[in-house]
């Protein structure tokens, strides 16, 4: 997964196992605590009731021939016993209700600190558009600082407030080690938050069925130290350098001569499309196609020939480029750092 993954990010461990019982973020830890208590209670109930089932089945099974004249004593019920097994579940339920409501409140109504990082995540079929809020802007008046796609960078040990929206159908934002999932709903703004405890590249997924490529709408959350994060932000806000090699310059020409710019955006150039992912710093990303392949020249070349060979059903059309044009465009894209 190394690829063009450069700079400070090489230190951050990949965390591909999205194990909800290995939480590394404050809300995920709060969920984890409630989950463990629930699991223990359920395990105890399971053992007791299974024990009862095995006991009555073994003890009261009829052995040998059936003699219908010897029916067992006919018992029709017992109010006391039935009352007992009504009251005990009620008590257990009340305990669970208290745990649940408390945790709901703690997570959902958690205050947003003043120094929180604010980002907007917009779901598309089948990729993630991510906007960063300009520092100092009021949270309710959105001013975009810069945009990226399919990769979120956040500082460690700091509250990141995430606004979730959708451009088309339902999606769901789920990075299990950082928080539970929240849906992205067209026409609504949802909110979630994370406060990671450790650096690393966390693997997230779309968790609400959203059509053909639902399975390949992956997300990476890169948690960095504050210094690394600040450096990354600065780099994101700097437009990529102009291409220098002849091939890349030719590639840039092909890029602007075709309809690429209708959908894609590259800062500092006339390309300002909004229907597809922002490509300004494409070459610094881990993967392409929302996680469909590692980001390297080979997979970019395959993608440029026909995106559907990698990702059947993808909305980007085959641009019908010649092999030479593909090589040139790939050379140009690799300069977008």
């Amino acid at each position: 997964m190394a690829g063009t993954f450069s700079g400070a990010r090489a230190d951050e461990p990949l965390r591909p196992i999205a194990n909800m019982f290995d939480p590394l973020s404050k809300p995920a830890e709060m969920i984890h605590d409630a989950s463990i208590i629930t699991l223990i209670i359920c395990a105890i109930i399971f053992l007791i009731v299974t024990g009862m089932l095995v006991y009555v089945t073994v003890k009261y099974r009829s052995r040998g021939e059936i003699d219908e004249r010897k029916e067992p004593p006919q018992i029709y019920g017992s109010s006391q016993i039935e009352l007992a097994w009504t009251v005990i579940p009620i008590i257990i339920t009340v305990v669970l209700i208290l745990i649940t409501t408390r945790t709901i409140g703690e997570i959902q109504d958690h205050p947003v600190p003043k120094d929180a990082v604010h980002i907007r995540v917009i779901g598309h079929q089948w990729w993630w558009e991510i906007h960063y809020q300009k520092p100092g802007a009021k949270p309710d008046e959105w001013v975009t600082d810069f945009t990226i796609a399919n990769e979120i960078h956040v500082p460690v040990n700091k509250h990141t407030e995430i606004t979730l929206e959708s451009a088309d159908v339902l999606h769901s934002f789920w990075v299990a080690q950082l928080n539970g999932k929240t849906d992205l709903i067209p026409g609504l703004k949802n909110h979630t938050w994370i406060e990671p405890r450790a650096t690393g590249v966390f693997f997230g997924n779309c968790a609400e069925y959203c059509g053909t490529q639902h399975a390949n709408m992956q997300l990476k959350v890169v948690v960095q130290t504050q210094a690394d994060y600040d450096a990354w932000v600065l780099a994101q806000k700097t437009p990529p350098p102009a291409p220098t090699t002849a091939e890349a310059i030719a590639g840039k020409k092909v890029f602007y001569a075709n309809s690429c710019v209708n959908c894609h955006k590259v800062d500092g150039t006339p390309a300002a499309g909004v229907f597809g992912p922002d490509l300004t710093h494409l070459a610094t990303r881990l993967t392409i196609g929302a996680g469909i392949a590692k980001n390297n020249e080979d997979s970019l070349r395959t993608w440029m020939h026909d995106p559907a060979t990698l990702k059947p059903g993808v909305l980007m059309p085959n641009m019908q480029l010649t092999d030479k044009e593909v090589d040139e465009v790939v050379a140009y894209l690799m300069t977008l750092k």
Partner: protein
Amino acid sequence: MAHGSTALSKEYIEVAPSSPGQEKGSLTRIVQKMVFTVDHKVLGLMYIGSGLFFFVIAGIMAALIRIQLAVPNNHFLEPDVFNRFFTMHGTAMVFIVGMPIIFGFANYLVPIMIGARDMAYPRMNAFGFWMFFFSGFLLYASYFAGPGLYNAGSAPDVGWFAYSPLTSRAFSRGHSSDYWTLALFSGGIGSIATAINLIVTTVSLRCKGMTLGRMPLFVWTFLVVAFLVIIAMPPLAACQIMLLLDRYLGAAFFDTQNGGSAILWQHFFWIFGHPEVYILILPGFAIMNEIVPVFSRKPIFGYPIMVAANLMIAFISLGVWAHHMFTVGMSSVGNAFFAITTMLVAVPTGIKIFNWLGTMHGGKIRLELPMLFCIMFLFQFLIAGLTGIMLAVAPFDWQLSDSYFVVAHFHYVLIGGLLFTIFAGIYYWYPKAFGRMLDNKLGHLHFWLFTIGFHVTFFPQHISGFLGMPRRYYTYDAGRGWDLWNLISTIGVLFQALGVFFFVLNLVWSYWKGRKAGDDPWDAWTLEWATTSPPPDYNFEHLPVVHSRRPLWDLKHPDDPDWKYE
């Protein structure tokens, strides 16, 4: 075991003469009988038979889904083909497998159990069946007719709950979503007709002496189910009509770009969908309520509280729907409300499980096939109930929702719960319907293979859910910790498929070669065992008169009848 049955039948009824048209005849005669019949028993068997037919088709789809997911980055199925399979599998299993089979049991058994000659409205009964049957074929017809004039789309690929706006014309081209909508809409009309019929039959046609307090719990449970159907189906029909208006007449109920609401669909759907879960599982309870006492040789423990638990479950189930929506961003108060109501369901459900255990306690448990399936039901439904409690803890649900854990949970409910009791019911009542016992050896093969296969398939899905695998993924990358669990899961399918094979083989083989059953092979206590196997068209020559909940117990034990104690 067919002891005393002759004496019994003489007591209750004269041995019924076979009526004209009953003798085995030509194919035309059989087809004519099936098409024109208004006999609740024939309709009941047709419900169950066609439900099992669709079950096999939808089961094959599930097997193909599991093959695709056996290894990471598999290319066995295209993504769209996969998405259609899981949509059709889910839709079919709920609407044209689960529903008809439970209605089949109700149709066949409710009139006989209450000592009636037929349902209250026999023609409406046939109408209900044919609506369902039509809807099943309409749904599958989408595979070749769904592309429509646009030549886009095929079978529905929007998931069985068809969340908007994926169903809008912008995202669902062709007619696949229309086939989904219209098939379920017409099936729903049939379900409502059948539910009305069941209620009227139960209320009006009980034989002499059968007060509500003496009604078999099976009938009680189906009375509750019928009310739930009448309450739950109309919201589904309403939102399906709204969806059609959206798609073809420019309404904007769910069109978010015209001020519609994507969440509205979810509320409508789950106001139907959650009671639907209980519509499907309560019949499982109904079958348990008949089989567990007979094979424990004791009356059901706590009859009144079992009735009350049914009513409580039905009532609470109408107020829990948004627990399917904990992740849509409801307020903390909303989330807490639905978490609390959902947990309350655990109380009456717990009562039922304990009362079944209480019924077995102190009995003489005959471990025959119907009872084996019922004991496994108790074990599996316990797991399903406990994972249900985990899902009700809303913060836990934020992690578990839409993951493979949910897939495991509802398969434990619908297979481990409902399907196991359906199997139990078929082993129990097949002798009544066809006059022959199902084969014991084939039955044991079926039981063990299916039980093992079921757990091997679905238990690992709890774990892949814990490890963050979302549902409805046609593929996944290696290295996410999901490979092993998916492989195990797929291996389990082989066992399940073999189990189902032996089951179908048993159904067919025993029809001709099975041991003769006699009228009352299990030494049971409810009225269906007081008539011949199979029962005559009119069920009873003389309508029975009952004095207790177990009329046949009273006859077999005149020295110690039930009515002394009730």
